[in-house]
Each structure stands twice: as C-alpha cells, then as structure tokens.
C-alpha cells in the first residue's frame, strides 16, 4: 500500500517538513494519512466492538468513532440531531419514528456488493423457505423505500433499503435451571406464583409490553390479532395483568440496564426473567448455570441495521458505503456470530468461521471442541448444544418483533401506571 512506503512520517508536521525538503511527488502518497476520514458511528454498545473498528481501520485506513447511547437515545438523536453522526445503527422498529422525519436516505443496493445475499428473513420474512411470525415491526414491512428521500415505506422490494441489517436475534426468557429444577416450556411461567418475588421483566416499555403480551397469550387470557399493534383495550388488559402480578409481589425487580439483568440472575435474586442473549452469556462466563430457554409460543425477535443520514455526502458517503460493504464481507459477521448473534449475510460469515464453530452456532450440533468467545472466554464445553438449536429452528420460531404501536403514547402512559402501581 502507498502509505506504508515510509511509516515514520505520519504526522502533518513531518509531512510538511518532508514536502519542503523533497519533491512534491514524494509527499503525495501521504495524503490519506494526513487527512484521514473518521466515521461517527451512532448506536447502542451492543455491536460497537473495539475489535471491529480496529480490523476495519487495518483493512481500509478509515477510522471509526463509536457513539454508544441507549436504544431510546439512538432514535432521539436520529430525529433531533441528524448531523451528529455519519452512520446509524438502529433497530428496525425505530424506523417508524425516524423515516418520516426525512433524516435517513435510502441505501442504494446497487452499491452494496452482497445486497442480494442478505438473508431472506429481512427481504421476504422467511427462514429456510418458511414464513415466520410477522406481528409487530417485522423488518420486511419497513425494509424498502421507493426512492432515496422517500418518507414512507414501500410494500414491495425496491432498489433502496432503509437499513442494511447488522445483527438480529430471537429473545426469550432466561432461567436459572439449577434453582428452578424443572422444565420451563411456556411464557406463562413468568407470572407463575411459584416464582413469586423471583421473577423480573424489563422496564423498556416498547419491549416489555411485548414480553407481557407473550405471557398474556400463553396464559390463555387473550389472543392478540397483532401483539405489536394493540388496541387501547388490549393495552389496558395487558397492563392490568402486569399490575395484578406486581401487587401480588410477583416481581423481584424490573430492569433497564443490561448489567442489572446479569446481576439479578447471577446473584440468585431472580430465577426467571426477560433476558437478552449476551446477558445469558455473561452470567455463564461467571460459571453460573443460565439457560436462554426456548418456549413453545416462540420468540420475540429484534433486528438492527445500518442507516445513512441525509447529511453525509461525497468522500464521507463513500466511506460509509465502504464500511457497510466491509461489514457484510464476513469478518464482522463471523465475529458477531461467535457472540451468539446472527449476521446478515450468512455465507460470507461462514467462510470466516471454523467448521466446528459454524456447526455449533448455526447448525445446532454438539460442539466437537470447546467454544470460545471472540475474546477467548470459554462459552461452552465440548459436547454441549446451543440453546434453541439451529438457525432455522431458532429464527423459524419467531412469534413477533419489537414494535412501535400506533397507540404508543397511550401505551407509555399505561406503562407508567404499572411502574407506579
């Protein structure tokens, strides 16, 4: 590469000195080093891994500057301050709030090399040729726009995508099998009086209400036409169920921070709760048994993706596209798959993973040797199986997606009632 010809002269000062002393031609190759591009990457800390930024920098010379905030704040920034970032990594359900502001530009799939290899879960809502649950904000509903600056979604696939998927997963309840000592098969167990004072639900209204809806439906109280878009009466019923449980002392705590959920579980304060996959992993790396329990009613899925704000242009926009292409190219995908998430383009990620890793993480086969996280922590011993089985079994079991409801304002108001009860 051109910028390796003289690795000692990298600073602007020495560049000027060098240029003054020698010919202009000698200074030319250093232009990129003197004026490096930095991309401000707005997202939650979930996939803002240091290793990914370092590898990308090593591969392309482009610097990534992470701006880690909460899910709510990603949306807030996208709506209120679109020029404070160059690349956004947001959840699909937030699009209902962000897109109408016109702050995002549709991504031209002709410039994304692996666009046609993005898993069918996003483009068609299918896994292995079979339709999965699409209640809530399923990505396929908000995946496309007609033209780059469109403020409404396109029902049919087009050349322009709203977000290019980064990671996604299917969430369920986490349990302490060593303390529960019996099989757990249904969401309704979350409100089972057996676990009075030992269960927890997450205090992020738009996600917590979905977990609550899974419980209500599993208990046979009500069958929702669409859990992701409840009527006012349905919201009332769901919150009423939660309030009754809370008054009876069902919940030990509600949690909002990832670390809180890890701590509740690891300390044994809670034995069954809403949980996220990396939190389960974190409990396990402490040597404490914790299962991300597959349940018969299915999973609550979520997905995040890269979006491009309308404020980037020129070289910066090129760099953003370069990053997205690099992200789909396999290395990052393999990295995320090894953390227990799923990547958007499976075949490129597969090429960067060992066969035994792929078999454990994606095919649901017993590990033939110890499974380690990207930082080298032991995640599973040889012979163990991944919770929930293969990619098809797990993603095929999606019942609903994280969502923003039409009655969102009312829901938030009722949720505050639940917290105050």
């Amino acid at each position, binding site marked *: 590469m051109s910028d390796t010809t003289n690795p000692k002269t990298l600073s602007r000062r020495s560049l000027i000195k060098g240029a003054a002393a020698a010919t202009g031609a000698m200074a030319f190759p250093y232009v990129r080093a003197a004026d490096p591009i930095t991309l401000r990457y707005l997202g939650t800390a979930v996939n803002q891994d240091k290793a990914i930024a370092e590898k990308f920098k090593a591969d392309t010379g482009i610097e990534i500057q992470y701006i880690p905030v*909460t899910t*709510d704040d990603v*949306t*807030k920034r996208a*709506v209120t301050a679109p020029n404070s970032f160059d690349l956004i990594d947001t959840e699909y359900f937030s699009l*209902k*709030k*962000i897109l*109408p*502001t016109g702050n995002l530009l549709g991504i031209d799939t002709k410039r994304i090399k692996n666009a046609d290899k993005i898993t069918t879960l996003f483009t068609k809502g299918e896994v292995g040729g079979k339709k999965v649950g699409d209640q809530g904000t399923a990505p396929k509903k908000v995946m496309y726009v007609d033209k780059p600056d469109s403020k409404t979604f396109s029902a049919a696939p087009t050349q322009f995508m709203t977000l290019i998927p980064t990671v996604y997963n299917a969430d369920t309840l986490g349990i302490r099998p060593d303390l529960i000592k019996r099989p757990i098969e249904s969401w309704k167990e979350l409100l089972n009086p057996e676990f009075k*004072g030992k269960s*927890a639900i997450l*205090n*992020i*209204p*738009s996600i917590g209400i979905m977990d609550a809806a899974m419980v209500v439906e599993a208990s046979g109280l009500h069958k929702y036409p669409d859990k992701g878009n409840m009527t006012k009466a349905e919201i009332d019923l769901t919150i009423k169920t939660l309030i009754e449980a*809370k008054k009876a002392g069902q*919940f*030990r*705590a*509600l*949690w*909002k*921070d990832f*670390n*809180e959920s890890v*701590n509740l579980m690891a*300390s*044994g*304060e809670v034995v069954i709760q809403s949980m996220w996959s990396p939190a389960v992993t974190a409990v396990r790396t402490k040597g404490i048994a914790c299962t991300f329990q597959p349940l018969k009613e299915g999973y609550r899925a979520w997905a995040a993706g890269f979006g491009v704000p309308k404020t980037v242009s020129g070289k910066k926009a090129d760099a953003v596209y370069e990053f997205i292409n690099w992200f789909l190219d396999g290395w990052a995908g393999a990295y995320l798959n090894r953390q227990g998430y799923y990547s958007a383009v499976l075949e490129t990620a597969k090429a960067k993973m060992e066969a035994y890793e792929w078999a454990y993480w994606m095919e649901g086969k017993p590990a033939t040797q110890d499974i380690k996280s990207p930082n080298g922590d032991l995640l599973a011993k040889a012979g163990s199986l991944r919770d929930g089985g293969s990619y098809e079994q797990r993603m095929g079991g999606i019942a609903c997606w994280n969502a*923003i409801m039409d009655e*969102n*304002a009312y829901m*938030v*108001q009722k*949720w*505050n*009632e639940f*917290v*105050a009860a």
Partner: protein
Amino acid sequence: MSSSPRSLSAWAQATPFTLVFALFLVLPLVLVAVVSTWHASDYELIPAFSAQNYIDVFKGCANTGELCVTLKTYLSTLKFCFLVWAITLLIGFAVAYFLAFHVRSVGAQTLLFILCTVPFWTSNVIRMISWVPLLGRNGLINQGLQGLGLIDSPIEWLLFSNFSVVLAFVHLYTMFMIVPIFNSMMRIDRALIEAARDGGASGWQTLWNVVIPLSKPGIVIGSIFVITVVMGDFVTVGVMGGQQIASVGKVINTQMGALQFPPAAANSVILLVAVLAIIAVLTRLVDIRKEL
C-alpha cells in the same frame, strides 16, 4: 435608577452572569413551558396551544375511590423527600457538629471531609450492584442473621424496597447537608458558646438555644439541596427500588425515551412548580439573604 459611574459599573459586573443565566436557565425553562402546550406525533412536535398534556397528567384524579397515578407518584416522591430530609438532617447535623466543634486540626477536618465524599466515587449502577451482596437475599446481612439463628428465611425488604431507596439516598446526599451546616457552624463565634456555658447553660441548652439558631441558614441551604435532588431523582429510585417504585423523574424519563416531549415538558413544569413551592416555604422560615 441612577446613571452614576458606580451604578453603571455594578450593572456591567452583573451582566455576564445575568446573560449566562438568561441563556442557559431562563430561556430553556421558557422553552419547556412553551413545548408543554404543544402536541406531538411519534416523530414531530406540532406547535399548538392546548392544556391537553396537563389534563392527561391529572387524568383520573377526580376519582376519589383510588388515587390517580400522578398523585400516587407525587405522594411516593414526597414521602422519600421527607424521610431522606429528616434522616440526612439528623446525621448531617451530628457530623457537622463533630467536625466543627470536636476536630481541632484543619488537616484532620479535610481528611474527614474527603471521607464523606466516598459515595460519589463510583457510578450509580456499580453502587447498586455493590449493595446486592450486602442486602440481597443471599447477601451478607441475611446470611449473618441466618447464621446467628435470628431469622429462618431471608428478609426480602432489605433490597429493592422503600428501605433500600431511602438508605441509598441517605448514603449519597448526607454530604449535601454536612457542607452548608458545617460552614454555618464555623462562623459561630466561639465566645458565644463560652458565654452560654458561663451563664450556666447545660450542653443541650447551648445546642438548642445557641448552635441550632445560628446554624439555621446552613440547615435551610442543605435542606434545599437535599429536597431538590430527591424530588428530581429517578436513577437511585430506579436501581435501588428494582425499577418498581415510581418517581416523578422516572415518569418524565420514560416519556422522553418515547420521544413524547410535550407530556414530559408538562410533567416537568408541574414538578418545577412543586419544588419551587417547597423552597418558597423554606425560605419563608429563614431569610437566607439576611443571614448570609
């Protein structure tokens, strides 16, 4: 207003700070008040002039059977406020008294002061996580009591309860009481205390008739600190209450999270009025300006 050079220079000296306050305090507050009358959709603010947000806040409050959410939340917040105020006042006064009248060297005073700031050295989440091994179901206290045979099953209310919230507040904010009270006490002329003793007053009489009246400004300032901080807090109530206890700040925080700025602004205005009312009463009790 006279235009003598002296008055002019006074105005000039006050201007920078006035501008800072006008720009960064008054203007934002005015904006909050304005936005509280607006409408909002999921993604935009719609200018309007309506009381709807305020009506929504007090929805159901006419029902006398059960308290509405807002009143319940305020009652709970006020309850914490009172408990924390009373306890921090007691502890803060005692600590300040000890520092001011019993610790002689300035070095020792400074060292002890720094000790009081220890609770501020870590983040809230870490602090909460460190309470769990102490107060939790399998925590030190429960295990200790069980080991001594004093209780059969763990005490549940030690953590994620009103108790733990008050404990955390006191742990954190006693400092705000200590500093101003200590400050007031240091200004007390030691000759007055000697005079009281010479006049035959007992230790309690000196405390009640000399020290406390002269510490009043410190007590009021400390009270204002503690009360305003507790009224607006949502993080401590959240983590120590297991997110199950409502607070006014939490309601606002949740609405902000959902991008519902106008209702959040309405709630903020109401909270502001409530806090200002409390402070007005406090300053009525003691004229701080005169005392300082």
